[in-house]
């Protein structure tokens, strides 16, 4: 039995989610920042985290953007396979919702229409849309505004299969070291291992949405997450790169089967303003 949904019903949902994501860090992120404040040993780092917490609280109270870089609007739709859409183009309706969210929310417009010509689109569209088909007749929409500072520091490399676990660790730590404080630590590190180049990068991005503190269900990866979290923090980069014991709030790894010739690894950083909001319709 299919469920018919009109495509225009998602416009107000998107508008609401864009604003909520940009204004409010959720309890999971705020809790992690408070733990980081307690744990940080550097006085400069501690002051920095304290200011970040106060800023996030102020943003929520005033309903203003917690970070000025309200990002590329990444929209993730998990669409039940029993859903049947009716009405105008779904892609257009998503962009209309994003447009309204950024406009009525007084959020920064950071998108240029062409990467070489660089004219601002002035409404922060288009969104970057990911869709996944899931069982059931529901649709879950997640909005993830992704700031440039952290997004720009991501990296991808196809390792040789023989490089294995040690190769993955080296690539991650080399990348973290080379980008220093630029991705606005304390950050979350999303890592994709396996799949193809595109799928690997997507896993790294989606891993950022996993709640801080939650481990991969497979012990091999859970252990690797914990080891990398310790090692990343041992690099001393600290909050905003000004030195300290807390560089990453967490490390999340997801994996996927891959080709016999390859060991793809993708790294996506999520800055301290880890913003996302979701609704199910």
């Amino acid at each position: 039995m299919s469920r018919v949904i009109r495509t225009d019903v998602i416009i107000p949902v998107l508008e609401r989610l864009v604003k909520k994501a940009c204004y409010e860090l959720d309890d999971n992120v705020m809790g992690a920042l408070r733990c980081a404040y307690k744990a940080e040993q550097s006085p400069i780092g501690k002051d920095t985290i304290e200011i970040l917490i106060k800023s996030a609280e102020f943003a929520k109270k005033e309903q203003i953007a917690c970070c000025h870089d309200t990002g590329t609007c990444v929209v993730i739709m998990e669409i039940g396979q029993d859903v049947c859409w009716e009405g105008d183009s779904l892609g257009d309706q998503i962009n209309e919702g994003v447009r309204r969210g950024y406009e009525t929310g007084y959020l920064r417009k950071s998108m240029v229409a062409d990467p070489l010509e660089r004219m601002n689109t002035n409404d922060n569209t288009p969104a970057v849309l990911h869709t996944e088909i899931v069982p059931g007749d529901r649709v879950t929409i997640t909005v993830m505004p992704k700031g440039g500072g952290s997004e720009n520091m991501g990296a991808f490399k196809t390792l040789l299969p023989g490089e294995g676990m040690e190769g993955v660790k080296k690539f991650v730590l080399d990348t973290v070291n080379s980008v220093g404080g630029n991705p606005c630590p304390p950050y979350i590190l999303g890592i994709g291992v396996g799949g193809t180049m595109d799928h690997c990068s997507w896993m790294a991005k989606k891993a950022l949405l996993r709640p801080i503190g939650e481990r991969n269900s497979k012990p091999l990866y859970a252990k690797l997450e914990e080891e990398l979290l310790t090692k990343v923090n041992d690099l001393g980069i600290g909050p905003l790169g000004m030195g300290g014991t807390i560089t990453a709030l967490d490390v999340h790894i997801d994996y996927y089967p891959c080709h016999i010739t390859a060991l793809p690894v993708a790294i996506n950083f999520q800055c301290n303003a880890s913003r996302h909001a979701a609704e199910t319709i």
Partner: protein
Amino acid sequence: MDLTLPLTKEIVKSLKIGDVVYLTGYAYTCRDAAHKRIQNTLEKGEKSPIDWTNQTIFYAGPCPTKPGKTTGSIGPTTALRMDPFAEMMFQQGMVAMIGKGSRSDFIPALCKEYGGVYLLGIGGASAINTKQIKSIEVVEYEDLGTESIKKLYFNRFRVIVGIDTAGDVLQTREIQKYKRL
């Protein structure tokens, strides 16, 4: 310590890495696209539309201002992207840059040569920064939207000295203290 803008070369020279400074007075926002446009203007043999002598540049692109507020959320962007323009701006008279993150290896030498400083804001604290801004207006390149040049008035805006006129770098010193790997 509290400092009034515009800074002077003497005051800038007295700053040392790690100093927490509260700035009061006028500064300008200027980032990627505006720097590029200034460069094009200068290359044509024309003058910069703004006199940068002793000025402080805030690498920032704010959110639009909500009705009833003074400014939209505002904070430092990655300073590294402005590195190719830093010497040009020093030659124009700039004395201080406010941004976030690390700089290229040649920036400390430029700070030493021109007597300038790199001041660190906090990336991500853009909501609370609005409390320290008393006015903001577009003065050049309005068509660049958030990237236009804006003149703003800081009221005790907090920064930390990241690179001083001796060419010392705060991040290098501090990260060494906590590095265990």
